């Protein structure tokens, strides 16, 4: 069968290959997020000071705990490919699902742009010349990774596993190299840590980039269709990923805040490389340069994978043109969905505005987290406990949903502080896209095909 025939919507469907294990799931989740420890998290220092950033790291950690609790119940029950997108289709409805799919696509595409931007910027820092042109490196990074994704998910995520592990090791090496057991020798927390420069409103403002410590870990469930044993691999890969990230976030904050003045840290593009520079160790400098590039490459790699799969799922369901729902006849990858998002990622990377590109990614993620409590409350209302078989039932409902909703509202306020116009620009995009879907695109969608679970009819319908 040719890909043309597949795209034309023939009934015979080529499925994605089931080749992934827990290590690949770990690599997909941590690979996307770990770059957040190498860049981006430090903008929270700029918004609220070093201690404000640490408090934001903890509070946003609570937000992700609620995300993990809610997602565990819904993901373990909605055994359909597509992660949160499939959940929205089954629990809330098509327009919400379309938006959730877009949240995933935009969050990962903007993160991919930020990754490529950092690779270019780090090479410029290493080259040490003002005239260094970063743009060819941005294009090269995205093009090579897109090619890997085009060729096959197994090779892509195997590469990701290796480079993610190497990047994580570089953070540990930096931490050990700063002799944390000997305060004052290398780390200078006593002299560098200041009071909260903006008071407590700065702490709330820091929630904005505090999201960056963890953003994307929930992307592990995007690979559900390609995992050999989802019931075992997805929870194992996700939970080991969260533990890895908590360790990495602690190491990162402690090392960087003990080496760099907060004003510098709050605006740096490559804070961990800069931390290595001030230690005076050439070994650490080289190691962290390599670690930063590897983390950015691993993240961009995972982002291309996840964004393309979300777009592909929407194409298969006709939420976007069916042409994107094609699987490559030889490589069994969503090749058209991979290619369409590349120009967008490159364009945003070319702007060089790292904090703003990151903010677009954060806002899409935040909209997705706001969907989760609504989804959870409706899920329990439409299918109460014992009405369907759940893989996991999270305790204390609806407290986690309400806490998550409250933290999301606080984080919108945090983004409004300093980035209010960008928040409205992002909302303009989602409102425009929603109107397009509701009043034009939805007519191409098969109604009954949107519900594939073998559940009873939801209560109230």
């Amino acid at each position, binding site marked *: 069968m040719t890909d043309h025939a597949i795209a034309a919507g023939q009934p015979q469907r080529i499925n994605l290959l089931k080749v992934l294990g827990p290590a690949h799931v770990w690599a997909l989740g941590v690979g996307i997020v770990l770059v957040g420890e190498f860049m981006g998290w430090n903008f929270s220092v700029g918004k609220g000071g070093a201690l404000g950033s640490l408090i934001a790291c903890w509070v946003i950690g609570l937000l992700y705990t609620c995300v993990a609790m809610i997602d565990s119940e819904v993901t373990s029950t909605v055994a359909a490919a597509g992660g949160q997108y499939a959940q929205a289709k089954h629990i*809330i409805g098509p327009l919400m699902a379309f938006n959730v799919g877009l949240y995933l696509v935009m969050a990962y595409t903007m993160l991919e742009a930020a990754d490529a931007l950092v690779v270019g910027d780090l090479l410029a820092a290493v080259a040490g010349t003002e005239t260094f042109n970063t743009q060819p490196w941005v294009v090269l990074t995205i093009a090579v990774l897109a090619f890997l994704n085009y060729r096959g998910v197994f090779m892509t995520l195997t590469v990701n596993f290796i480079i993610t592990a190497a990047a994580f090791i570089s953070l540990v090496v930096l931490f050990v190299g700063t002799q944390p057991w000997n305060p004052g020798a290398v780390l200078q927390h006593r002299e560098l840590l200041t009071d909260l420069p903006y008071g407590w409103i700065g702490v709330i403002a820091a929630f904005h980039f505090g999201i960056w410590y963890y953003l994307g870990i929930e992307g592990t469930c995007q690979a559900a269709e390609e995992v050999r044993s989802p019931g075992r691999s997805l929870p194992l890969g996700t939970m080991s990923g969260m533990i890895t990230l908590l360790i990495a976030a602690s190491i990162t904050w402690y090392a960087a805040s003990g080496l760099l003045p907060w004003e510098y840290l709050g605006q740096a593009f490559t804070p961990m490389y800069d931390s290595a520079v001030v230690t005076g160790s050439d070994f650490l400098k080289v190691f962290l340069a390599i670690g930063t590039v590897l983390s950015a490459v691993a993240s961009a790699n995972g982002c291309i994978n996840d964004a393309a799969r979300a777009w592909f799922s929407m194409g298969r369901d006709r939420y976007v043109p069916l042409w994107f729902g094609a699987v490559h006849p030889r490589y069994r990858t969503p090749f058209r969905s991979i290619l369409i998002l590349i120009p967008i990622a490159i364009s945003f990377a070319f702007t060089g505005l790292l904090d703003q590109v990151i903010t677009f990614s954060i806002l899409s993620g935040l909209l997705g987290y706001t969907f989760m409590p609504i989804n959870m409350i409706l899920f329990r209302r439409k299918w109460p406990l014992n009405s369907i078989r759940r893989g996991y039932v999270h305790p204390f409902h609806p407290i986690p949903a309400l806490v998550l909703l409250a933290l999301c509202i606080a984080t919108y306020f945090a983004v409004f502080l300093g980035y209010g116009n960008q928040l409205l620009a992002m909302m303009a995009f989602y409102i425009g896209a*929603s109107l397009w879907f509701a009043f034009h*695109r939805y007519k191409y969608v098969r109604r009954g095909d949107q519900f594939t679970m073998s559940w009873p009819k939801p209560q109230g319908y």
Partner: protein
Amino acid sequence: MARRYEPPRQSGIGQFIDSIFIVALVYAAMFLPLIFGLTGGGTVTNVPETVTWESLGQNPTMAAQWEKLGYTPESAAEIISTRFDYTIDPVWFIITALVIGGYFVFVVRYSDKEYREVISERFE
């Protein structure tokens, strides 16, 4: 039994136009505000008249770290003196809150209308 909805077949040109629309929306709503400087950190910069590490509020350890990064007081002054402006404009705050709240209300309510069609076709 409810009649099964059969969607129209979309032409290749129709699919192309739809693809272009969504990409154009990304550029119009997000990219143009970015490159025209309409978004980004709302900051103010107040560099002191006399620029020294002391006047910039940097102690000797901080100054030493700046110097290891290749900065002088003059080259670091703008970075150190730039602060976010967290003054809240109540009108913009209310507009932003209404936009986000209104968006979610519309999406959830309209989704429910579509969802009833899905459930009707799937279960009846």
